[in-house]
């Protein structure tokens, strides 16, 4: 009996970590789908989202739930700004060039974080509503562990509706299918790209808030690791594919938690797990679990 309850505990932890990875991975996958660009700075956008929430809750008189909505919106606009400054001038140039710019943007945001927010870790103000422990048949679980997957699933349903049913979503999918043809069909590329960055950054910030409620320690470099891992989740699931990103996120989150839980000897290798998984996937099925097969055109 004890084993089952421990397993359930690990399972819920894994699912909640997995949905956090999924939320961040969506931003990577959407941008990659349209621009074929790894937005290296996405993890740092996530960090900005957490810090904006932190400052909003601590230093403004606004109620926390309003900050939890406003901060992601603001982060979304920062995402748009990032694209305009670091990526747009390079549109149409070699991919390595843009990748270098993305890495530069990532380091810029991290170090701006250190300059503005300070290098000292801060404690995230977790609202009481999200932060109490409930007992469920012998398993004591923090309520936030349930809220994370619930919020994620709601957002995913919203996103799926947006991409499949609305006109903007259709334009987005058209752009990711065939950029040149879509742009000939009168789609306003700049607008769609801005919306994509907005939504990716918005979701990353929501993921950040949930992350902060789960692991309430803020640091300017906190975005780097979750960012890389979420990117891996996106690749594992098949980059460019939103469902794939979610599946990849869950595989990664569950895998990491289970590795630590059942092979404690290997717990030091936790951070390497994601990278090993990435390399295996790239070698076995480079297009990812849900990705379309890419044929090389000559």
């Amino acid at each position, binding site marked *: 009996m004890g084993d089952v309850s421990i397993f359930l505990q690990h399972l819920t932890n894994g699912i909640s970590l997995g949905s956090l990875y999924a939320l961040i991975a969506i931003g990577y996958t959407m941008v990659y789908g349209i621009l074929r660009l790894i937005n290296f700075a996405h993890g740092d956008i996530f960090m900005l989202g957490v810090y904006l929430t932190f400052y909003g809750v601590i230093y403004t008189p606004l109620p926390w739930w309003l900050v939890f909505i406003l901060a992601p919106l603001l982060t979304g606009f920062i995402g748009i700004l990032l694209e305009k400054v670091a990526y747009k001038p390079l549109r149409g140039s070699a991919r390595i060039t843009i990748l270098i710019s993305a890495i530069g*943007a990532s380091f810029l945001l991290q170090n701006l974080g250190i300059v503005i927010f300070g290098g000292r870790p801060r404690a995230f103000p977790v609202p009481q509503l999200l932060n109490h422990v409930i007992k469920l048949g012998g398993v004591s679980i923090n309520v936030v562990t349930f809220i994370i997957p619930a919020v994620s699933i709601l957002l995913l349903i919203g996103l799926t509706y947006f991409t499949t049913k609305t006109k903007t979503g259709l334009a987005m999918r058209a752009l990711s299918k*065939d950029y040149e043809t879509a742009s000939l069909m009168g789609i306003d590329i700049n607008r769609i790209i801005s919306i994509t960055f907005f939504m990716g950054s918005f979701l990353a910030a929501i993921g950040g808030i949930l992350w902060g409620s789960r692991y309430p320690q803020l640091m300017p470099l906190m975005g780097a690791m979750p960012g890389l891992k979420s990117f891996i989740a996106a690749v594992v699931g098949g980059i460019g594919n939103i469902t794939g990103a979610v599946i990849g996120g869950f595989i990664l989150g569950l895998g990491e938690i289970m590795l630590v839980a059942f092979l404690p000897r290997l717990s030091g290798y936790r951070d390497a797990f994601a*990278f090993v998984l990435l390399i295996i996937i790239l070698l076995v099925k480079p297009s990812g679990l849900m990705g379309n097969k890419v044929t090389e055109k000559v």
Partner: protein
Amino acid sequence: MREKSKTHVTLIILVLTILGLFLANRYLDAYKIRIINLSGIYVTLGLSMNLINGMTGMFSLGHAGFMAIGAYTVGILTMPVSMKQMNFFMQPIVPFLANVEWGFLPALLAAGLIAALFGVLIGAPVLRLTDDYLAIATLGFAEIIRVVFTNTQSLTNGALGLKGIPNYTNTWWSWGVALVTMWFISFLMKGTYGKAFLAIREDEVAARAMGINLFKHKVMSFSFGCFFAGVAGGLMAALLGTIDPNMFRITLTFNILLIVVLGGLGKIGGTVIAAVVVTVMMEALRFLDESIDLGLVQIKGIPGMRMVVFSIILIFVVIVREKGFLKRTKGRELTYVKN
């Protein structure tokens, strides 16, 4: 005629370097000598990364990992036996390394060879990936190497790192290696292998159609780059005397990438100049991070400001020079938006 004048230029550079180093050793203080050493090491690093990224067109971000391999090889091989016992107090070092004490040159060569071996082992499977996938896979490998080094207590002393590595590196070593790297890479690029590397960079499909063995040349370029990264890591270890796994984070790769981008992808001379300029600037801009006391006024430094400046420079250079560099790679296959 042209060959002859080139030989003259090489000779002049060689003589000037030796003279410069001689004068520097004689008249400069320890801090400046250290910067000169670091510049030499960064020249080697920049050139080795440029061989992979600029000349062969493979976007690798694994340099820090290969440096770590080199640094640890030199650290473990050259450290005196008594020092090893002091370092490994948590868990004794693996027996076959406990009584090893090599000279610096064989240790450096071993560092390069082991890094190159790992380069082949890692490169063989991942080098068939392109662009961003390769970047993320090599980044992953560098990260795995770091995590493994943090956990192998009896081999690398884990997170504690190694202390008391003999300080063999001096300006002759660091710049000697830099000159050898410079010579080797320009020699390589003049020959058939170099031509093949460039062809792969320009257009993989066309290169393959011309009968170039993609796999062989990519692995070759990658492992040569890794060799020099390992040697440079070893020099770094013997310069600093202390290493730990956290030194070899992606930030280190970022610094080298900055050198390669500033110097120009595929350019040897530019990389050398950029390496020196960036290393000196890294030190010169230290005032941004630290407080300066000018007696009457105190300027408060902001930690992290230095890297902010460098990131802005990187983005700025990439955007401004976009037309100039990588011009020739601007084929349909490599562009931002692939159809």
